[in-house]
């Protein structure tokens, strides 16, 4: 691809030089990556390989055993069909399986492959025509050897049952609205998905951690609350126990169907033990005291954590949270001034000094990923807003007060000054995203410079998520966060489709018919390269229109004990599938 990575190159280069400067021992072949479950944590790319050694090599032979001690800030349910939150999906991945998943390897994965799928329960996929996908199931996949399923084989009928249940109750069901029917073959070895319309990224959608989890019927029907009391699937770990505000645990599934390259049973770990800790301070203290194996580090505290835990390995990660400004829906639906004018929106973007903001929130400073889609898709899908490929629209991401003021004057007349409310969530976000508060305090100061007077409207999280974020009932603009999209198509559809037609996160009710049409056409394309090119085109287009104004997202750092090995690369689409994409190959050295 011609879009090789300026951004990730920069991150990697800087990090290596930092490491040399700090004279830290090079850890040969150790791959980066750590559990990213704290808050909305991101994932990792890997860059600690030195001198082209084979990723994962040099760590020695995996030793089975040991319990991973991690932390989670919030548990909001255990049924991945019922929940829409990534937290539930992340935890569900320990116990449930999908037909497919996203590709991960030990060590480094080329960015070209960050957004590619791999097989899980399916051993073969056929695509005889653009509307038909036939998945052949592995014969050796068994549900956990626990009542009521007692280790019976996972068959095609289970996939059909799970799909129907998902279609009935999942808040995400619009993600699969292109599916016409799902049928099982008579012998139970094959599942056929018939689509209503072509969907070129269908396998990526199937691999998404938000949707098609396979859950056995006997378990669901055991009792009304069975799926909320515990987890029972075919994943790598048996559900152990859950006590609210205390912990959630899993033990190894001894009959798990996947093996490593040498034919050894996976997972290596005997168990997973996640302490439920809401206070970041506590998390940091626990890691320093050695009671946790891996944590996510607030970007401003990198040096502090390094100082406290000199042995720890720090992995850089693309944080998948999008942070952005969204405007009052009437701006688009009723042509309400001032945000109906793209010049005003561009001016808002140009008034944001992203470099200064990043320096403020991260000691590693100076990059702005996640504009407009998240950088975790890799540079073969994500356009670097600082690079040349973004084209003319790139200027709107550059801090330029003079131009911002000129745009405002042109758009609004007079001296171009105006005042507007700014909504934001004053609780929860600030806890799980450590830089949210500083950024939202800095924004009014930045806008003031451009002649925009902002009056702040803090909202308690429950109010925010229901009214402002959920229903778009607000005036002025909002500074908000968007959790991860595991799939390019999900990003485009959610953010720009009409709200009742798959645009669940079209907070501003952007009603660009041309854009919607282009997205639909793009998603129907069959050739991945064509989709890729159109995806770039759309990124240039929305950067020009500035329907949403992206702010900044610092890279994330995870710290882990050097004993934790077998860490995979993590990318945007894989971040939250902890059980399968992240921790399946973890092990502890002595």
């Amino acid at each position: 691809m011609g879009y090789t990575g300026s951004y990730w190159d920069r991150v990697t280069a800087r990090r290596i030089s930092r490491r040399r400067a700090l004279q830290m021992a090079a850890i040969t072949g150790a791959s980066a990556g750590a559990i990213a479950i704290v808050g909305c944590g991101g994932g990792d790319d890997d860059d600690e390989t030195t001198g082209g050694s084979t990723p994962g090599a040099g760590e020695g032979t995996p030793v089975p055993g040991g319990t991973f001690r991690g932390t989670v800030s919030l548990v909001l349910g255990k049924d991945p069909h019922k929940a829409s939150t990534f937290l539930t999906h992340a935890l569900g991945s320990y116990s449930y399986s999908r037909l497919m998943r996203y590709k991960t390897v030990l060590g480094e994965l080329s960015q070209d492959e960050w957004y590619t799928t791999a097989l899980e329960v399916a051993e073969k996929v056929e695509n005889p025509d653009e509307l038909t996908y036939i998945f052949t199931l592995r014969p050796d996949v068994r549900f956990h050897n626990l009542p009521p399923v007692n280790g019976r084989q996972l068959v095609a009928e289970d996939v059909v049952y799970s799909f129907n249940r998902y279609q009935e109750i999942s808040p995400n069901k619009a993600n699969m609205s292109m599916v016409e029917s799902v049928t099982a073959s008579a012998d139970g070895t094959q599942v056929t998905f018939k689509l209503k319309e072509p969907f070129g990224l269908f396998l990526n959608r199937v691999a998404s951690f938000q949707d098609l989890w396979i859950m056995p019927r006997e378990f669901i029907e055991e009792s009304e609350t069975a799926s909320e009391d515990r987890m029972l699937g075919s994943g790598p770990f048996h559900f152990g126990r859950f006590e609210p505000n205390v912990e959630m645990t899993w033990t190894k599934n001894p009959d798990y169907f996947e093996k490593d390259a040498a034919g050894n049973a996976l997972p290596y770990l005997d168990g997973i033990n996640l302490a439920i800790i809401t206070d970041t301070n506590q998390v940091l203290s626990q890691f320093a005291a050695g009671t946790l194996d891996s944590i996510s580090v607030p970007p401003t505290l990198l040096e502090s954590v390094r100082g406290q835990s000199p042995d720890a390995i720090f992995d850089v990660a693309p944080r998948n949270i999008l942070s952005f400004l969204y405007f009052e829906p009437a701006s688009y639906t009723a042509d309400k001034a001032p945000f109906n004018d793209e010049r005003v929106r561009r001016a808002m973007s140009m008034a944001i000094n992203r470099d200064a903001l990043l320096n403020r929130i991260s000691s590693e400073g100076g990059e702005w990923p996640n504009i407009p889609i998240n950088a975790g898709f890799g540079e073969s899908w994500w356009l670097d807003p600082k690079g040349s490929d973004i084209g003319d629209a790139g200027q709107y991401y550059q801090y330029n007060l003079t131009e911002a003021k000129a745009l405002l004057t042109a758009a609004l007349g007079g001296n171009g000054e105006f005042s507007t409310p700014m909504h934001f969530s004053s609780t929860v976000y600030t806890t799980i995203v450590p830089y949210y508060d500083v950024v939202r305090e800095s924004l009014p100061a930045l806008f003031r410079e451009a002649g925009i007077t902002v009056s702040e409207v803090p909202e308690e999280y429950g109010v925010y998520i229901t009214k402002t974020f959920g229903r778009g009932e607000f005036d002025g603009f909002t500074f908000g966060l968007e959790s991860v999209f595991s799939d390019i198509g999900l990003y485009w559809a959610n953010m720009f489709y009409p709200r009742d037609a798959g645009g669940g996160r079209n907070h501003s009710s952007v009603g660009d018919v041309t854009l919607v049409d282009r997205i639909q056409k793009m998603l129907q394309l069959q050739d991945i390269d064509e989709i890729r090119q159109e995806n770039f085109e759309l990124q240039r287009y929305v950067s020009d229109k500035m329907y949403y104004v992206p702010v900044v997202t610092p890279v994330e750092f995870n710290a882990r004990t050097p004993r934790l090995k077998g860490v995979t690369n993590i990318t945007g689409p894989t971040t939250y599938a902890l059980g399968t994409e992240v921790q399946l190959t973890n092990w502890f050295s002595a």
Partner: protein
Amino acid sequence: MATALDLTLAEPLLPERPRGVAAVTRFVLSFMRRKPLGAIGGVIVVIMLLCALAVDTALIGGEAPLIAPTHYDDQTFGDENLGISVSHPMGTDNAGRDIFSRILYGARISIIIGVSAVAIASIVALVLGTVSGYFGSWTDTIIQRLVDIVLAIPPIVLLIYGVTVFAGRAGPYTRMFWIILIVGLILSAGASRVVRGAAIATSSNPYVDAARTLGATNSRIIFVHIVPNVIPVVIVLATVNLGTAILAEAAISFLGLGIPSPFPSWGAMLNISGSSQFRAHPAQAIWPGLAIAFAVYGFNMLGDGLRDVLDPRLRGSR
């Protein structure tokens, strides 16, 4: 039922005293001599009041900082998390703002919230307590049962609840209004109990009976005999409650439900979500915490001193 501040005044207080500036001066001087701790509290309170009044030129209609070096939201990019220096006596915070200025401005927020909430609490407590204590019977029963309900729910719980319900998406000023009102009403419940005790004690005095026999109306008895005797109790309560109100505002702001930054509420400066920031820059947590502690200490000490002086039973030493 007795409470921590139960001051039943058995006899009319402050009968004939010299009036005017001379009397006030004399009282202050004697207070300082007899109650040095109370005087220290008084000095802290006066300093706080001065900060609140003179931190900027708002009193004369301006917006410019006066005794504060900078405006509370004067951010400088690149100056984040600076240590202590001559230009920043307490350093700068994570948004490049002068912490010293924010602490000074914070005094204003604490004073506004404290004084307004306590004013509400005092008035409500005075009315409820006097009416309840003087009339007794079913009036008393109804009022006391209502007070029971408020007292049965932990204050912070009521506060979290009330702010979320009424100010869940309010701007800073509306939010401030609701915090004041809710804190005021919560404080008034406890205070009204104390006032009621004092009112009962006063109305059982022979001269009240005498006034009633002479045909004085209820309102006359209340305003002439009861209220003046209850006022000192209210004053002492108010001083101590000011400290409590400041702590309450700090707590709710700490939880992210109070006055949001950029407004420099001391509690918000310690916000629970930002608290991990203090690992890298501990001093940033020290200053707002000390400011709260000093303010609350000042009001409590002043209140204790006043009580020692105003409460006849505690007057003088053994």
